């Protein structure tokens, strides 16, 4: 029921945006190659949807994002956990992890293609590199903010390392990790698009380049909108999981 209301709110927001868009284009007489009319983009959306092709591109991009996302979370948490636990790892690796993280991966995308080939691997690497960091930070933060009493409880109860993670440390990090995931997810979609932009014969990133170089504005906007749809799907997925797993947290106690 709550879901339904939320969907309604989003639809209303989108409708309002479309209206503003329409008024802007008409009132300022914006040429179509800069911003096409909503109706034309609507037509392009439907046209793309009704051809088999779109689904293919859509699934390719979603698949890449999902795979990169899952791996990014696993690696991010694992490394974050190790760094949070072992001071010497933090000392030795942190400067380089930070350096690697702050490197604009977008600029490296062409090099990723050279280094990891034209296939799936380079795309996956790019996406992982985007999701990895926020999750890692969340893991470290969560680990460090386990309260003193909880640490004592864990020691007294005799949790092994795995139980510590599953029973206490991971749940404790979840609020931070989810905040990181929301940010990382956006980056993951961007990464997938850039990767497809550089190399690839399918995916929404490919559609973007194709429609951009052929100046097909309505199709270009439609492609952008479909990339946003991918984003929304992942965002909804994360929000769903967040509500599922964070029901107990203070941040969820507001009505």
């Amino acid at each position, binding site marked *: 029921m709550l879901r339904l209301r939320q969907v309604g709110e989003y639809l209303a927001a989108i409708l309002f945006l479309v209206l503003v868009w329409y008024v802007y284009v008409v009132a300022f007489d914006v040429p179509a190659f800069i911003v096409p009319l909503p109706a034309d983009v609507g037509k392009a959306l439907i046209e793309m949807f009704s051809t088999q092709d779109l689904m293919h591109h859509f699934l390719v991009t979603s698949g890449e994002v999902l795979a990169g996302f899952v791996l990014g979370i696993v690696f991010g948490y694992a490394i974050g956990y190790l760094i949070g636990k072992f001071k010497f790892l933090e000392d030795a690796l942190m400067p380089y992890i930070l350096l690697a993280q702050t490197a604009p991966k977008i600029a490296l995308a062409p090099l990723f293609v050279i280094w990891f080939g034209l296939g799936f691997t380079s795309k996956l690497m790019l996406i992982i590199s985007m999701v990895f960091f926020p999750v890692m930070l969340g893991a470290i933060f969560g680990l460090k903010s386990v309260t003193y009493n909880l640490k004592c409880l864990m020691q007294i109860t005799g949790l092994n390392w795995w139980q510590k993670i599953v029973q206490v440390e991971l749940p404790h990090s979840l609020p931070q990790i989810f905040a990181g995931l929301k940010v990382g997810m956006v980056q993951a979609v961007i990464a997938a698009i850039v990767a497809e932009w550089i190399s690839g014969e399918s995916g929404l990133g490919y559609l973007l380049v194709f429609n951009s170089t052929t*100046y097909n504005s309505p199709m270009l906007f439609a492609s952008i909108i479909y990339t946003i749809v991918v984003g929304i799907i992942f965002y909804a997925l994360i929000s769903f999981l967040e509500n599922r797993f964070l029901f107990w947290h203070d941040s969820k106690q507001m009505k």
Partner: protein
Amino acid sequence: ACGAKPNDTAQTPAAGGEKPKEIQKVTVQMDGAAVPYYAPMYVAKEQGFFKEQGLDVDFVYADAASIVKNVAADNVQFGFPNADAVITAKSQGIPVKVVHTTYQRGLGATIFKKGKGITSPKDLKGKTVAVTSFGSPNYIQLQVLLEKNGMNIKDVNAKIVGTGAIVNALVSDEVDAITFSMLRTVELKNSGVDVDEIRSDDFLPSFGNVVVTSDKYLSTNKNTVIAFNKALNQSLDYIIKGNVKAAVDMSIKKYATSSEGKQEITEKIFNDVFIPYLWQSDLTKKDGYGAADMARWQTSIDTQKTFDIIKTTFKAEDLVVPNLK
């Protein structure tokens, strides 16, 4: 229509016929980044040819599609993109005009490493060939090349590799050949990669970089456009008439600083390719630099239609304004 217009002075209509008195600031947006090949533009500025024409010119860079859009949106007054990108844009109704056919021929070439068993177009059969996009002129060039040699696109394994990675894909043997800019051939050779090329222009007429401006700007600032062309022609003439070294040295020193140390190879490319093959043709001997071979332009447009890159064909006259001097 858009937020910022960097050069509002450019909007002031110049009095017809007369040379504009006050200095006009204009921006020209060029393909990619600052490379010495844009020497004609840099020389025109540094030698004061632009200034003589009452122009103060600024340079910015972007990819071809963005250039055309920025020109049409009045963000910049002039663009210097690849002609193929302009044809595609025109077919989509973007209001731009080519006012100076600077490069008389296409830059496209299919490049491959020697020793890969490729010596003639026939040898491409079964090979992996990269193009930047299925919507790109390279792709048409590749198709025409294959068909003129009794094959079709199914006979090769066509791959998409973006502009940023395509040359490296060739170097790292990810692909056997690429259809891309012929300028890379010389550069690759120079950096020790033994490559050879099949020029696309031999099969399919096209043009490299051309000067474009928007319909609106051309109609309201025709004199400025003419002044721009005059300065550019003056510059081309200056370079061709014995100043290649000076032009290259100046361009690298003042603009394309990252090409430091490439003076010699660039000079060689200018003497071997730009002067005899790109900037001059039989037509320019007759009509001057930047002259437009309307029949060649029409063929170029029609081929894009034939290969379904553009949906509608149009008359070359609607895009290209010849002899704007």
